[in-house]
């Protein structure tokens, strides 16, 4: 045991630094949330006070509910995120299985080809993507977003999943083959359940950027009926800049679903990052 490592002064300093940064990280979120429940006067008079009986007001939320179609936006975001994740996981796992399980001509090349997209952002191709979506009539449809996010998520998914699939025991798969299982059954029944933790990691990694993306909804699907929550709140807030109650409430409504999802998945996310999936 070494004294330097347990020195109480050191410990206090460490906690001090961490608490300070925790406050910096939480402060803006906290200010937005508490002020969204206050009346307009109270927002300006005492911006840092908690809402009390006197200053409590839901007027902002009422405006948002009346003016913005937040349930539709939420539903759109939900559909886009869930369907894209399903495609990324299914297609990514299938490709990862092919690359890690079989030896065939061009295996290495195919792996490199799919890995290209990890470093090159898909946004560079936006002009041509929009042209293509216009030509195929997919513009202003959720399908356009789903396709783009699937393509965006696949490279990293294939990379991570094939690393994990190499660790699945060959004996297990060969036992299945001897029992007469088809390659498809081996993949879906034997291998997929074993890489479930890796799949969860991939899902959590992709979920946040897809849910929060502004660029592609703005360019590919800006119509009222296909707006995602991120784009919807951006447009809504832009229109209501002077109505502070409405802006603060809209912000809070955009924060809450993400925060809830984070509380549910944070352990998975942090375990995913720290287990070295992205090393």
């Amino acid at each position, binding site marked *: 045991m*070494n004294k*330097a*490592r347990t020195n109480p002064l*050191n410990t206090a300093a*460490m*906690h001090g*630094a961490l608490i300070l*940064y*925790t406050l*910096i*990280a939480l402060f*803006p*979120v906290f*200010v*937005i949330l508490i002020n969204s429940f206050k009346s307009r006067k109270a927002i*300006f008079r005492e*911006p*840092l006070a908690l809402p009390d009986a006197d200053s409590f007001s839901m007027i902002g939320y009422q405006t948002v509910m009346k003016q913005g179609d937040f349930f539709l936006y939420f539903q759109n975001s939900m559909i886009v995120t869930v369907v894209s994740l399903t*495609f990324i996981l299914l*297609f990514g796992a*299938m*490709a990862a299985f092919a*690359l890690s399980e*079989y030896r*065939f001509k061009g295996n290495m090349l195919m792996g490199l*080809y*799919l890995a290209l997209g990890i*470093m*090159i952002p898909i946004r*560079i*191709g*936006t*002009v*041509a*993507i929009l*042209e*293509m979506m216009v030509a195929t009539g997919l513009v202003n449809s959720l399908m356009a977003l789903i*396709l783009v996010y699937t*393509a*965006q998520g*696949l490279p990293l998914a*294939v990379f991570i999943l094939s690393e994990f699939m190499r660790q699945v025991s060959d004996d297990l798969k060969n036992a299945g083959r001897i029992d007469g299982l*088809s*390659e*498809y059954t081996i*993949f879906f029944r034997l291998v997929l359940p074993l890489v479930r933790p890796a799949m969860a990691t991939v899902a959590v990694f992709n979920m946040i950027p897809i849910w*929060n993306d*502004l660029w592609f909804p703005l360019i590919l699907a800006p119509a009222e009926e296909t707006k995602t929550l991120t784009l919807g*709140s951006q447009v809504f807030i832009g229109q209501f800049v002077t109505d502070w109650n409405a*802006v*603060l409430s809209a*912000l809070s409504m*955009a924060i809450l679903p*993400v925060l809830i999802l*984070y509380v549910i998945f944070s352990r998975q996310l942090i375990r995913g*990052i*720290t*287990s070295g999936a*992205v*090393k």
Partner: protein
Amino acid sequence: MSRPRFRWHIVVFLAPAVLVYTAVMIFPLFNTLRLALYSKVDKERVFVGLQNFITLLGDPLWSDQFWNALGNNFWFFLIHMLVQNPIGIALAAILSHPRLRFAAFYRSVIFIPTILSFVIVGFAWKLILSPIWGIAPTMLDAVGLKSLFAPWLGKEEYALTALSLISVWQFVGIPMMLIYAALLSIPEEILEAGEIDGITGMSAFWKIKLPLILPSIGIISILTFVGNFNAFDLIYTAQGALAGPDFSTDILGTFMYRTFFGFQLQLGDPYMGSAIASAMFAIILIGVCLYLFGIQTRMRRYQL
């Protein structure tokens, strides 16, 4: 012996991923590079060779904007490298301390800004820094620094730095987590061996841990680079597509958006937009290659 049957299942397994990836990512990427060589003359698409790039770099109307955006982008990147990554490393170093209590709590909370969308982050900070609402001046007043307050987002000389720091606030969780993971993977024996030789505390960090996590710092740098040169959302939500005041926060992403889509008096031009996208592609490619061949291969990796 007959020749082995063609293994169709490999094709079936690979097809969906390869098709979607090729059609929606690789093909548009190269198509955008190709479109940069065209222009619209009398409503028809005409091949003009490198003319768009000559305009972009030679015509003062374009080149001023381009160099401005590129310079701003480098400043944006520099602030991330100088502020975000050191803070991330410091936080990770503290968090990885073996007997620290509540580490999981701190870790989760500090990561919260990273999961918020740019829209939330942009507007929340805009409100907090707003001189109308007065949260920032009130807080500065409380510590006696009120004279330092300025409407940072509205002043040309501060706006870009303020936005970069907001972006740092948002993303500090990523270097923190990756470095944290790297620090945890350092075996205890190495640190104990150092202790026996009298290397503890800060010097253990500088002399033992830091050299061991250099590869992770390299990865973080390249991720920051790619992310910064492809950034758009935060500037767009906080300052709009015109990246005000007077284009002082314009970066390549917003410049490309404005050119491609047009904004207010400017007409959209997909071909010039493609040319800017190609320039971004080239910059990112150069950065990634420099990292892969210049830094990563020369870095000493220690077998742990």
